[in-house]
């Protein structure tokens, strides 16, 4: 990492609590979601963001600080506590009835409001995506609300400088090395670093650490129409189970006959050209 003069950095990591499994099903008779005994957990992609932030803090100047911020119902406190166990210094929870039902635009807006209130930050780190919404778009929208540049699909942190961070971006056909001055936002790939396990020592040491709880009235913009469902341009019209039914044939016989029939089928469909 860089040997130029170090300065303390303020780093923000956005995290989310997600269902413990994506194996949710829709009960077709009642139309409800079946989520039996599903515990909530930290979005797995966020572990990479947390690890990245903690490593950047270690490479930056003394006095650097990592803040983990989440938005959700009160029980999402557990993911902030988990972040503390990975070495995060401060926790922020955005929780208010007015924030409920937020789509990508409103989620990113609320996070940006929280970042403005608790920042400013030099660097914001987000995971690639969540496992429940799967949109992978909140980070870029948050950067737009904050008016800072962002770089997505970061696969390595190459240098942490006093004024800028150098990263490598993973594209399908190439990798691109880029240097981005602070303040900026990065979304990091799964596997950028191996996330550390939560530390028992830190669990004990941070058990009483205060978390900043922010509701609507604590933010700069206190108009409830600008949050949650009310501010969300997209509306979910309905949810339904995926349709995976297709016509199919099965090939029977001995293994040898099956192989022969399949070879004939592939030949007939011109796959052996």
């Amino acid at each position, binding site marked *: 990492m860089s040997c130029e003069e170090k300065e303390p950095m303020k780093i923000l990591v956005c995290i989310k609590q997600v269902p413990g499994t994506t194996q949710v099903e829709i009960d077709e008779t009642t139309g409800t979601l079946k989520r039996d005994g599903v515990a909530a957990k930290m979005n797995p992609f966020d572990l990479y963001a947390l690890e990245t932030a903690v490593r950047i803090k270690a490479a930056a100047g003394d006095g650097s600080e990592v803040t983990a911020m989440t938005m959700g119902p009160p029980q999402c406190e557990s993911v902030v506590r988990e972040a503390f166990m990975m070495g995060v210094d401060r926790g922020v929870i955005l929780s208010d009835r007015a924030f409920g039902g937020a789509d990508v635009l409103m989620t990113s807006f609320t996070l940006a409001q929280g970042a403005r209130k608790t920042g400013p930050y030099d660097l914001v780190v987000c995971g690639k995506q969540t496992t429940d919404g799967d949109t992978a778009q909140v980070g870029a929208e948050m950067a737009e609300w904050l008016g800072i540049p962002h770089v997505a699909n970061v696969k390595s942190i190459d240098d942490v400088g006093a004024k800028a961070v150098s990263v490598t971006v993973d594209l399908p056909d190439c990798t691109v090395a880029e240097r981005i001055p602070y303040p900026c936002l990065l979304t990091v790939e799964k596997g950028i670093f191996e996330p550390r396990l939560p530390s028992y020592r830190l669990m004990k040491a941070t058990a009483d650490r205060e978390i900043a709880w922010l509701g609507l009235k604590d933010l700069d913009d206190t108009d409830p129409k600008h949050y949650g469902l009310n501010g969300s341009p997209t509306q979910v019209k309905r949810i339904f*189970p995926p349709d995976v039914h297709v016509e199919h044939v099965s090939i029977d016989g001995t293994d040898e006959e099956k192989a022969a029939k399949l070879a004939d089928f592939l030949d007939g469909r011109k796959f052996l050209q």
Partner: protein
Amino acid sequence: MSYIKIHQSKIADREAAKALCPFGAIAENAAGELEIGAGCRMCRLCLRKGGGAFEFVDDSAPGVDKSKWRGVAVVAEVGPDGALHPVGLELLGKARELAAKIGHPVQAVVIGAKTGDAVERLLAYGADEVYVYEDPAFEHFRIEPYANALEDFIEAAHPSSVLVGGTVNGRSLAPRVAARFRTGLTADCTVLDMSESTDLDQIRPAYGGNIMAHINTPRHRPQFATVRYKIFAAPPKGEPHGRVIRRSLAAERLLSKIEVLSRVQKSAEKGIEEAEALVVCGRGVKRPEDIAMLRELAGLLGGEVASTRAVVEAGWLDPKRQIGLSGRTVKPKLIVTCGVSGAIQFVAGMSGSETIVAINSDPKASIFKIAHVGLVGDLYAIVPELIARIKAKKETK
């Protein structure tokens, strides 16, 4: 404002009412009344199942004047060498279909350092208008100038819908500009349709593909949607009829704080997304050395070997070969799965394949539900025999 109102008097069974919400957002407040908490995702299941106790109240201000937003636009991505990403043509085909339903034009937007070839192809495939932003500043994808160009296009053309390829760059550009216009974005749509009101009907998987959501953007324009590569088919070529509109940005709008230090090309090995045939290695393959057999079969079929997540996690194959929600989405002409159970996360990444052949020893494996041709049996018996038969057939040709 819109919200869900609870009629407390109509609630017969409090516990049952609370249980209606899959997200646990219905809870009792200090006054002992039920209320909707911050966990609400507006799935509205409580409205359907709550026996009238839950009401959706919508008294929001009317939205934009939709008649002022015309056109289905496609952001067609080009590389530094000017090569058009094929998802651009797939989206153009879909845009033509959507625009025809409401009599709107199809617009394409090209942003790059070299655009000539892409513009010609977009015209050949039926774009009515091609907006071109060509400048050396666009050689590498850097978010600020790209977002400024797309913003300029939207202000100039006022498209009703904007379709963006779900590529790495598209997934960065679309949200950035959607936020700039304070409008809706639906990521990774798998089905798109157009309603008479010009509202785009967007269907996308959520929860790892276990649930499909139908999403609208009823009061905002433009409506942004991203679609991954190989979800839609490329359209047939037509007679070029469209016009080209060249636009430029002021110098300061071309600036980026991001400095590209270097660009390193990866090896030109064909990715699984480009392969016309795939042979998939699943958990039924017992040892890493047995993949050689699948590789041979793939070679005979003119394709590549791909895999499930478990195989990649075991370190047997490169993550680039992984199919599924946490891997790649593929749509080959032929896919032969060997020892693949067919978990929904896997299926979501390959269900668009034209012909699906499944070999699995478990007759109950869910892969058989989507396979066009199913073979229940031991892949260690069937695959070597199949290789021998194919070789014999090839020799007689």
